[in-house]
């Protein structure tokens, strides 16, 4: 059925997230009473519930900035970029980039990276369940075939590359324990996995992000290791493979020439 030319929803919706607009003309209180404060209940429900949704997705960011700072920042984002899906756990994908541009967050250049890890954490939490690759399966591969090995990434596995010490800052701020002084200047890449029901965030060693990303793109182990060595001469292939398998980053193996 086609919507009416100007539907009640088209008249009602625009002021919900725009405080500069008046309440729509089509609404009323009982017996023609004013409905300004009544409409404000909806404005408040919408805005507060969406800020709450961002606070639930980004608890470490909120802990770092403090609640008032966070809610003010989130309010700008909510008004400019309301959700486009009814699934709130999908919301806020643009928030890390928003934080990176947000004028008052410029003194915390690591904040956007911490937010990227938190967004990846939630995606891992809701990802499809899958049994991770058992280390024994890899151990059974003949050494001369290892270079052609292709690994299937686990549905929860993600990599976040950060210019600052985002993994350390994330880990220190995801619970309520006191946070001591952190040197934020060391770049840290994160591996986010969920081998069972608990999401794990690890700090990848040098070259690890290039290696894991290449593997996740379906490139054979030999090629992925070469790229990682190019990027980082300190790259340790044995330690990196063991770390990725232990974290549950993959589900199965195959051979590139198969």
């Amino acid at each position, binding site marked *: 059925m086609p919507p009416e030319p100007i539907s009640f*929803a088209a008249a009602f919706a625009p002021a919900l997230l725009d405080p500069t607009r008046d309440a729509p003309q089509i609404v009323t209180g009982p017996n023609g009473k004013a409905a300004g404060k009544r*409409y404000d209940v*909806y404005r408040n429900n919408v805005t507060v519930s969406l800020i709450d949704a961002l606070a639930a997705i980004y608890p470490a960011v909120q802990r770092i900035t403090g609640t008032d700072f966070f809610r003010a920042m989130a309010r700008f984002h909510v008004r400019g970029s309301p*959700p486009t899906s009814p699934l709130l756990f999908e919301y806020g994908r643009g928030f890390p980039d928003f934080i990176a541009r947000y004028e008052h967050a410029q003194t915390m250049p690591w904040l956007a990276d911490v937010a990227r890890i938190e967004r990846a954490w939630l995606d891992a*939490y809701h990802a499809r369940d899958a049994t991770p690759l058992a280390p024994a399966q890899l151990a059974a591969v003949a050494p001369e075939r290892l270079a052609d090995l292709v690994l299937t990434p686990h549905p929860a596995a993600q990599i976040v590359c950060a210019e600052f010490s985002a993994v350390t800052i994330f880990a220190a701020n995801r619970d309520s324990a006191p946070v001591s002084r952190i040197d934020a200047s060391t770049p840290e890449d994160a591996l986010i996995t969920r081998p069972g029901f608990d999401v794990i965030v690890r700090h990848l060693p040098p070259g690890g992000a290039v290696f894991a990303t290449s593997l996740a793109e379906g490139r054979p182990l030999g090629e992925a290791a070469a790229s990682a060595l190019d990027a980082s001469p300190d790259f340790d292939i044995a330690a990196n493979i063991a770390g990725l398998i232990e974290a549950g980053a993959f589900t199965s193996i195959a051979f590139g020439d198969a």
Partner: protein
Amino acid sequence: MTLAIGPGPSTPTPLRFPSPIGGIAGTSFKHEHLKAILADGPKRGFFEVHAENYMGAGGPPHRALDAIRRDHPLSLHGVCMSIGGPQPLDKAHLARFRGLVARYQPAMVSEHLAWSTHESSFFNDLLPLPYTEATLRHVCAHIDQMQEAIRRPILLENPSTYLAFTETTMSETDFIRSVAERTGCGLLLDINNVFVSATNHGFSALDYLADFPLSRIGEIHLAGHDEQADDDGEPLLIDSHDGPVADAVWKLYEIVIERCGPMPTLVEWDSRIPDWPVLQAEAAAAQAILDRRGTAARAEDRHAA
């Protein structure tokens, strides 16, 4: 418990708790209560969840819901279908909803007489609609579409509202009755919503209940509300679901149960969640009213025989 449908490829889980489940009280299911609920073991009662929270592919939410459903009937309560809006329903959302119904075989499925999406924006609130012939047609078409998608009837919940529309031409109860008659859907009577709306619009909650098609009710909701003030400084009640059920709402509940007999009754509590025993005690209070009515009905039957 008999199996209503044998296991097979199209029925991944047998329907362990076929509806109607009768006069039992339940609560919202909150993950922070999972441990305490599982420690209690199987108990009389049911749990209601917001469908959208379980529309992810996997992970802890599904594990928790699997655990709860093993021993208890489940009510799947949609909050985002936007049935009351003029635009077409989201087909992807319908498909996700169908998948959840197939997976968990809930005893009850419900949605709201409200809207939450306009164009591409999702507002995460249950927004009101005018009651007109045009909106009635949209709502009925949307309910038909949802019931076809999930292949079973839904219960439609009456809203709590803070304002009215100048273009409204019919009462909420007339609107809801027409929807139920045209679509065959059942109704979820939220008594707190009735009380909140009655206060906010200055009508009598008892008159509303007298006009409400009680015979179509398949579930009742009870919840707490909050009080603010309108433009004239008069009380404006907010459907906040963040506290105990008000005395006045319990009174109305007793009246409704007296009239329509024992009904599945949910105590909703969605924010400022208390410890499990507090929520459990609210459900026990509803159960006591249901049981009293059940006993009285059996006594009347004996007298009649």
